[in-house]
């Protein structure tokens, strides 16, 4: 890691308008006895990068899946650019198409070429023409350094390459924000940095990002804030410097010492 100090995203917090993502008191139960999210509130401003960390099973994935309504929740409200996610009248496919999501296991569509993976939703959801979708896909493949892979299939690419394609696929929809769910956890160690590099670049360009990760180097480098979750609750939600300087909760201290000693 070259820069260990916090380098706040230049574009962050410039606009004082409504947050891109706003969560208010979100609670979720999988069964009446099992509460997975406990009154979670936070918001992400335009251009902000927020890292979400915490022990396994603490509800990080569930939390960010609530943002684009991949998971329903029973209490609270979530707004994306002022549109209420948990309103029955909301056009969810349209809302989801404006939020990019990157998964731990890439989830590229194996029967489609890399090019087709990048153009499918552009054409079916955004109704773009073939030429426009292809041009957009080519531009993004070039950006993640995979121009020559366009005609291949996901199964013919390495894990790192697949995850870069998955990022490009999400970006092809011109999202207002990107959600990442442990994007490097399924990768061989030597491939982690190629994916993180793309994400760092994205953050520096001013993309609004919510990133579940244990890559604390990435957090230090580009995160404006760090959210620490434990047992379904947001325990800390503080500026990055503060989190690494002196986390207030004991759980976060313990978590950090474990993560950083590895």
């Amino acid at each position, binding site marked *: 890691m070259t820069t260990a100090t916090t380098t706040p995203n230049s574009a962050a917090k410039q606009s004082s308008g409504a947050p891109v993502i706003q969560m208010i008191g979100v609670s979720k139960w999988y069964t009446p006895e099992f509460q997975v999210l406990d009154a979670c509130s936070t918001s992400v401003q335009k251009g902000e990068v927020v890292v979400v960390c915490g022990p396994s099973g603490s509800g990080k994935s569930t939390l960010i899946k609530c943002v684009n309504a*991949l998971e329903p929740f029973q209490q609270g409200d979530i707004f994306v650019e002022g549109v209420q996610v948990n309103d029955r009248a909301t056009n969810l496919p349209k809302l*989801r198409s*404006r939020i990019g999501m990157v998964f731990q*296991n890439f989830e590229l569509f*194996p029967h489609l070429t890399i090019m087709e993976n990048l153009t*499918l939703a552009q054409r079916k*959801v*955004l109704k773009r023409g073939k030429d426009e979708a292809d041009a957009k896909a080519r531009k993004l493949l070039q950006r993640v350094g995979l121009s020559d892979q366009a005609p*291949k299939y996901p*199964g013919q690419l390495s894990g790192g390459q697949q995850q870069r394609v998955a990022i490009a696929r999400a970006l092809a929809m011109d999202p207002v924000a990107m959600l990442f769910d442990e994007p490097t956890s399924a990768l061989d160690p030597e491939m982690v940095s190629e994916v993180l590099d793309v994400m760092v670049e994205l953050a520096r360009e001013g993309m609004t990002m919510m990133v579940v990760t244990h890559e604390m180097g990435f957090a230090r480098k580009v995160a404006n804030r760090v959210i620490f979750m434990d047992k379904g609750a947001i325990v800390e939600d503080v500026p990055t410097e503060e989190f690494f300087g002196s986390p207030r909760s004991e759980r976060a201290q313990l978590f950090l010492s474990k993560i950083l000693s590895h």
Partner: protein
Amino acid sequence: MDKIVDWFSIFWQESAEGTGTYAYTLLLGLQLTLEISVIAAVVAFVMGSIVGVCRTLPSPLVRRLSGAYVEFFRNIPLLVQLFLWYFVLPELLPRDIGMWLKQVPHSNFYTAAFGLGLFTSSRVAVQLSAAITSMPRGQKMAATALGLTTRQSYTNVLLPMAYRIVFPPLTSELLNLIKNSSVALTIGVAELTQSARNMDSYTFQTFQAFTAATLIYLVLNITITAVMRRIEHGVAVPGMLVAK
């Protein structure tokens, strides 16, 4: 050599039915077997796909209905199903419709084709829903997250892979379907097996009649297996493992 010619000569005799040679009778039987099988296969594929997809949808009502469909067609012997459609259904329907149904030309042929198709569709539905469920949950999530509707996710993401997964079991279902089509003879369709029986009862050449039928079924199913295997390899996804 003479003996072999002698052995085969029965096939070139005029049949007692007066419609041509016995070879021709068998070919007519084969034609009916093929026609029943094609219709049944289309019905099985279409209904099996619809019901198979329904079994994986979130709605409990849709799941329960499609589950009931599967249990009905899967748990009653094919023979009983054909009798149900052919003998019982017309009696249960309002009189006029029942009468009309009995007079539809070739009603036994259509009953056999659709009955076999529906029976097989329950098996196709089970295979397909198992394939869809076996795919990583993240695939549906990724499609949904991109803004695809449920319908678009199924047609563009889930089904193309699910059909590839079920291709080998579907091949054996097709072979089963062709073999099962012989039950049509119980409601008076002179398909291949019945043709062999007819030839046997007129000529008492039991050995020849059923050897011929056996060979025709064998050649037919081996050809289908070969064709299906070629298609399977043709649609295999590059970079993914396929059984040789």
